[in-house]
């Protein structure tokens, strides 16, 4: 089979299966509802209202456009005709699959059988919507024609846009915006001034202080959660991203921070009622100590072994906190309530908004420490260790010491996150500290870009912030999570906002200027 036809078939099959899968689990209906919610065109009670159908068609058309353009990727002999053929084939294949599917579920539904007995999302309404409110036969045919046409169109479009990559266009736009801005007299003045950097930092700080003011408690709470995950992410970023130690039990240090503040300030079980600020410092120190304690025995291990041991450690802490034997000490499965919040000069400072400020302060502190470390001897030692531990030893790096340091600093950041989290919720319990926290934090570091501070912030916003915006999609969160991770690893393995080094590592062949050794990889030896 010719290459461009093969591309078409494979894209068509993929998108067909994915579309059917999304429809089966009810994702298409949910996405449609969500869009209706945003643009407000689905007020009628019936599920397959014109508005809903419009939204569905709109969303699916986007998917099918993607299908066609994927199929029409450049082949050896790249012509408009071939690109269109690829798109057409992809559209037809997807169209056939979807049409068969639509016809089948439509007929079952028309026969009066309730498919929800088998698939909970396949309500009669959802099926009708997918058939665009038409009869099974007509709906299936319309689907086929529509998808085929969109596929061919996308193939043509992809060919037309090929010479002007979108990325370049965006890059140019960005340059132009920057140029415009740098011509504004005030900005020029600030940039020229000796204190330019400090002024900009001040502006950023001011914005950060102002952000929580207009927000409701709910949004401040969400923002706080994002901030706490930024803290956790920055800590894990040091351990995993910079030092290259895969730690899957990171939540343990979060738990230690949370339980420290809980046990020191709550009326039960110990009634110590310490001041929040002192408890905060204790929590951070204890977490760092725990990092060292765990580090000493396990840091001899490398790679996967380390991951398994840390995973175990995380679970041990959680199970200990849950165990009945320790109920008297740590509150057991019921957790600890009435944890103290911060106060300033006797005034309580514990509204969600106040906590956002506190968390932002914590983040800034952590960002400052991290960026200083990154460019220091310590940071260089971490890079070397991550690259090749044996060679790092051979150039005279005390790997053991720097690993412990990474562990302790990462743990201290997690401890800080734990303290703030527990204190804000006024409660902490074993289920706050399950494996999912470790996995979430690791995911946001990977999605954002390992080793990159802005990456961690971006990752946290995407993985913790977006789900809040898209509440309706909550059921699909894990699905989307998985899909996002897989897609990221394929399309952009270096993360959304990678560090400069990582970008270089992942895209060597694209960003390196072509040099003689690339043109002649084996001949270099003899030269």
């Amino acid at each position, binding site marked *: 089979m010719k290459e461009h036809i093969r591309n078409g078939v494979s894209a068509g099959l993929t998108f067909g299966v994915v579309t059917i899968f999304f429809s089966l689990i009810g994702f298409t209906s949910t996405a449609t509802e969500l869009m209706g919610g945003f643009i407000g065109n689905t007020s009628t009670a019936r599920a397959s209202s014109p508005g809903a159908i419009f939204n569905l068609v709109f969303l699916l058309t986007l998917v099918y456009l993607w299908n066609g353009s994927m199929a029409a990727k450049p082949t050896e002999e790249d012509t408009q005709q071939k690109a269109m053929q690829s798109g057409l084939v992809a559209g037809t294949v997807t169209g056939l699959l979807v049409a068969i599917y639509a016809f089948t579920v439509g007929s079952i539904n028309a026969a009066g059988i309730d498919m929800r007995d088998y698939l909970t999302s396949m309500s009669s309404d959802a099926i009708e919507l997918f058939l665009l409110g038409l009869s099974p036969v007509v709906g299936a045919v319309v689907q086929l024609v529509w998808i085929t046409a969109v596929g061919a169109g996308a193939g043509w479009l992809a060919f037309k846009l090929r010479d002007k990559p979108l990325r370049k266009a965006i890059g140019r736009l960005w340059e132009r915006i920057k140029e415009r801005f740098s011509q504004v007299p005030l900005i020029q003045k600030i940039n020229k001034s000796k204190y330019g950097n400090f002024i900009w930092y001040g502006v950023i700080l001011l914005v950060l202080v102002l952000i929580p003011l207009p927000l409701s408690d709910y949004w401040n709470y969400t923002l706080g959660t994002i901030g706490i995950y930024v803290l956790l992410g920055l800590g894990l970023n040091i351990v995993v991203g910079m030092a290259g130690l895969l730690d899957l039990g990171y939540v343990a240090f979060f738990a230690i921070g949370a339980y420290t503040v809980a046990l020191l300030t709550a009326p039960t079980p110990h009634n110590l009622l310490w001041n929040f600020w002192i408890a905060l410092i204790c929590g951070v120190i204890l977490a760092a100590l725990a990092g060292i304690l765990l580090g000493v025995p396990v840091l001899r291990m490398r790679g996967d072994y380390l991951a398994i041991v840390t995973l175990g450690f995380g679970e041990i802490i959680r199970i200990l906190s849950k165990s009945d034997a320790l109920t008297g000490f740590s509150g057991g499965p019921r957790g600890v309530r009435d944890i103290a919040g911060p106060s300033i000069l006797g005034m309580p400072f514990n509204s969600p908004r106040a906590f956002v400020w506190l968390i932002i302060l914590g983040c800034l502190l952590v960002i400052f420490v991290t960026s200083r470390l990154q460019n220091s001897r310590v940071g260089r030692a971490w890079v070397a260790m991550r690259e090749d531990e044996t060679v790092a030893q051979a*150039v*005279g790096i*005390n790997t053991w010491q720097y690993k412990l340091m990474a562990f302790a600093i990462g743990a201290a950041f997690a401890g800080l996150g734990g303290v703030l989290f527990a204190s804000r919720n006024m409660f902490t319990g074993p289920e706050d500290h399950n494996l999912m926290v470790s996995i979430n934090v690791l995911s946001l570091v990977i999605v954002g870009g390992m080793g990159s501070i802005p990456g961690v912030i971006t990752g946290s916003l995407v993985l913790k912030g977006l789900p809040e915006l898209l509440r309706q999609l909550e059921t699909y969160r894990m699905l989307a999570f998985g899909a996002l991770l897989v897609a990221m690893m394929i399309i952009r393995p270096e993360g959304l906002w990678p560090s400069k080094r990582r970008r270089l590592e992942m895209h060597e062949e694209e960003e390196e200027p072509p040099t003689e050794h690339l043109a002649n990889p084996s001949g270099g030896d003899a030269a």
Partner: protein
Amino acid sequence: MALLEVHNINTFYGNIHALRGVSIEVEEGEIVTLIGGNGAGKSTTLNTISGITPAREGQIIFEGQDITETRPHEIVEKGITQAPEGRRVFARLTVRENLDMGAYTRRDRDGIKESLDAVYEIFPRLKERESQPGGTLSGGEQQMLAIGRALMAQPRLLLLDEPSMGLAPILVQEIFATIERLNETGTTILLVEQNAQVALSICNRGYVLQTGEIVLSGTGGELLANKMVRDAYLGAS
């Protein structure tokens, strides 16, 4: 007193007895080679000297100080550096960053700059590739980089682990010529090689290692002429 004295060291990997009472000496200014087949313990000897796989028994004396128990990074500071086997460069760091990493234990900025210039003079190819990731270099260039990186620590004693491994014959000549030149400028070298012919012809003295034991030693010329060496390592008929 020799620069390096290794007395009767025994090294184990778990239960595997890798070195059985190895004793060698390296005098200031020498090139000493260690030849032997696969698994004879050549690399283990170097790793034991540089502290990566410490000896369980025996003693290693460097410049009169006992370094048997000293940790690897401290050994580097004392003046022994190793260019590990298999051209291990930091593949994703640039050539320049690799070299800077070699000077990790040093804090004298000017001295580091001098060493860098010296390395670039020895290996002009590295200068040309300065900002290229180490992993994109050719095999020979990576070996140069590994040696250059070891030189950045200004070692009194340079340990070279199979510098000729996997290189084209013409490059092997080039690398060994460089090793001789380094030696002439005052670096003492302990060289581990499978390529016995070339190694023995440039060294002052050599040792033959077999299943963890030194079975023979002598000057390069003596060993080259030795029947056992000829049969076992030089492939002479």
